[in-house]
């Protein structure tokens, strides 16, 4: 089938099998460099990408589902200013995830930050901790992940000058 989609800001028209997993599509047809592994749906969490601002397992997303959608991968995201907010958060918390899971962690944090950056609500810790388990890597403990998300959100709000008002 022929699909049209936007990957990292580039509009693409591809001819692929309709059930081809998105991660293989990105690896083989778009040559995204940071998605080297394919887990065949084992949910290792290493293939997280943003599909219209929402983090998804690209190995479980078939090609027909991304028709007309916008995909952000770590390759494209790391060239943006938004990435600096997360990079700074890691540095200020003195935390460095392993090289293997860094792209997936960053995309997961970005999806959480995007959900909260414009809102005024408090970060839901339980929700974040549940989502932390999506990346199956042990290099960050739950408390460290939560600290980085908080810091990244603060950086983003500060940069975008979003005023926080507590809901009483």
């Amino acid at each position, binding site marked *: 089938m022929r699909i049209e989609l936007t990957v990292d800001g580039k509009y693409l028209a591809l001819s692929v099998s309709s059930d081809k997993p998105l991660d293989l599509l990105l690896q083989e047809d778009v040559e995204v460099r940071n998605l080297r592994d394919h887990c065949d749906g084992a949910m290792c969490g290493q293939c997280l990408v943003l599909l219209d601002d929402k983090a998804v397992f690209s190995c479980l997303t078939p090609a027909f589902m991304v028709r007309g959608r916008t995909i952000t991968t770590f390759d494209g995201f790391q060239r943006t200013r938004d990435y600096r907010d997360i990079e700074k958060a890691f540095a200020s918390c003195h935390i*460095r995830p392993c090289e293997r899971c860094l792209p997936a962690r960053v995309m997961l944090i970005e999806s959480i930050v995007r959900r909260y950056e414009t809102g005024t609500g408090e970060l839901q*810790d339980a929700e974040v901790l549940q989502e932390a388990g999506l990346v199956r890597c042990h290099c960050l403990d*739950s408390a460290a992940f939560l600290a980085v998300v908080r810091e990244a959100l603060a950086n983003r709000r500060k940069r975008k000058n979003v005023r926080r008002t507590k809901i009483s």
Partner: protein
Amino acid sequence: MAEHMRSSLNKSSKSYGTLVFPASAPSRITDIRTAEPDSRYFTVRTSDFPDGCSFPFLSGTIPALSEDRALHPGQPIMAIFGPDHESVILARRSFKVDVVPLAAEEYESTFAQGASDSLSWGNPKEDREGLRLVSSTYKDEFHYHVSPVLISCECWIDGEKLHVEVPTQWPANVRRAVAATCQMAEDAVIVHQMSVMQRYDEDLIWPSIMAVITAKACQKAGMPCVLRSHAYSASPTVEIHRNTWCAEDGSPVDEECEAVLHLGAWELDDREAMRQCLAGLEPVYNLQSFRAEVSVRRSPTPPSTFFRGSPFSEAAASAEIHATRIASSLELPFSKWKSYARTGKRPFTDYMPSVDLDSLQALSGPIIEESDFNRKWASYATQTDDFSLLSFNRGIALAEGVSVAGFSTSFSREHSFQARLTLTEKQNLTLLTSFPQRDAYAALMKKMIELESDLGEDNEAIVLDNDAVMLDSGPDVLGRAMGHFPSQLSSACTKLRLQEKEGNPPFSIVFSADEELMPCEFEPSGAAALVLELRMDSVSFTPTVVEAWLATTKGTLNNREACLSTMREEVASALAECGAKPSEDPARPFKINITLQDDTGHTVTDTSSCVRGLVKAAFLSALGQCVSQVGNRLPVSAADIEKAYRNREGKS
């Protein structure tokens, strides 16, 4: 370079493959039936290898394919290649493999007992009357590990050369295996080493198996071939039984222990595994005499000699959990007992030099304070087995030990693994190894070369991988690259500077990657202490780890953040192997507090194998404080805990 070549090849001109496995193992394969595949598909079978498809691996051999019998799950029978990955997966379903279980006699002869080794020092007391016997049995059951990601191996022929692109910890073995099975000269095989990030043994043996099959497919089809497969590996089963005779005050006098290692279906190097085990079995307290025996058995699992830090970690865990049992038998917190039993120096043996036990006390002191260990231990000890007051039980435990990294001296003498250091005309230093290139590791080695050889501001140190270079630095297992290698590199830098005084560069020296001249089999590579607090509720019976405090030494050159990340991963992954779950309670999410102490005696250290052992020991001790009848068996499941709790109820 490898990536450039891969992307430059046209995708439609490649063949994609997958492996066919038996439904069960160990088993004898009686028949392989298949529907006639169309001309776009082809298979690679044992008959395609006229001289056999086994390749050498250290002191043993491993078959890439086997069509008569499968000795362990994940042993490939054959491979099928076709136009794309998805259609090959569908085509694989047309293969029917009939198997029957191995007959009892065949099973016995195949998985027979292997070698054994022993260590002893001191003279045991002839008359043990009046001494109190404390016994414990530790069992760490094997667990299969199937890599979550598909490992990809690609081969293509370029003129006379066969190129292999695969993530591997040991490129020289991939080259040797392909050359041996495809009847090629070793220098006609070029291995492009892709980045290695797997945690277990996926990138040790499995890449060689995949490379052999893909290379044969490439030769057969005359076109580039890509093979994708999950990698199968397993941890060893380790059983250790200890008897310690203690004096009235609780100080240990004599100790005997027996260890049995089940190291998988194929022998890699049993003798090295036994040496690693014996080094870990030595307890971290003073004794008048000690005797340990280790024996190896083959088992129906993938080879597991070098599964992470094994079996040093398991042996160290058993020593520490036994020490906790001795303290518990005196109804003392471990921290109190060790303050008198763990003093002075542990004696020098053939396996380890003497260890300063006071320095271990100093390492654990701050985390005992920080975690409020003594108060919590006393409090939690009163509620062991009692879910009536609160709906959960809590446990806290302490463990400490010394680490080793790399191969033993005997192993280093038997195998020659090398690296090359070159001083160029422009006074730059180039290090060439076949260790997998990771950014953090390369940066560390650069820092080390700059420090050791006083490079000027205009000169630089360059660390290279060895694409197309015939150099074998050996497998990257047991923290070798951080264990002996830095000290070997340091002496190579000195030698090169001395050579420089005799003439003009370029100079190059090839040096051994391992230390062959140590008086003991191992040298300590740092020390660590760990406090672990866990909580178990009466409904799920899942041990939930709330907090961990780790104090460990760090080489003066180690990157602080990289060290923290490695240690965090080591603690969390070892806990996952034990069957523990990290706390997701927003009020107290799982937290690992790490204190790094500079070890001025070492420029680089690696305490990973010790930390893994300490986590297992501390986990079992803390679990024992929650439910006393649970026993020292890993991994722990909710069913085990429920059973232990019911046993306790039956007794009360």
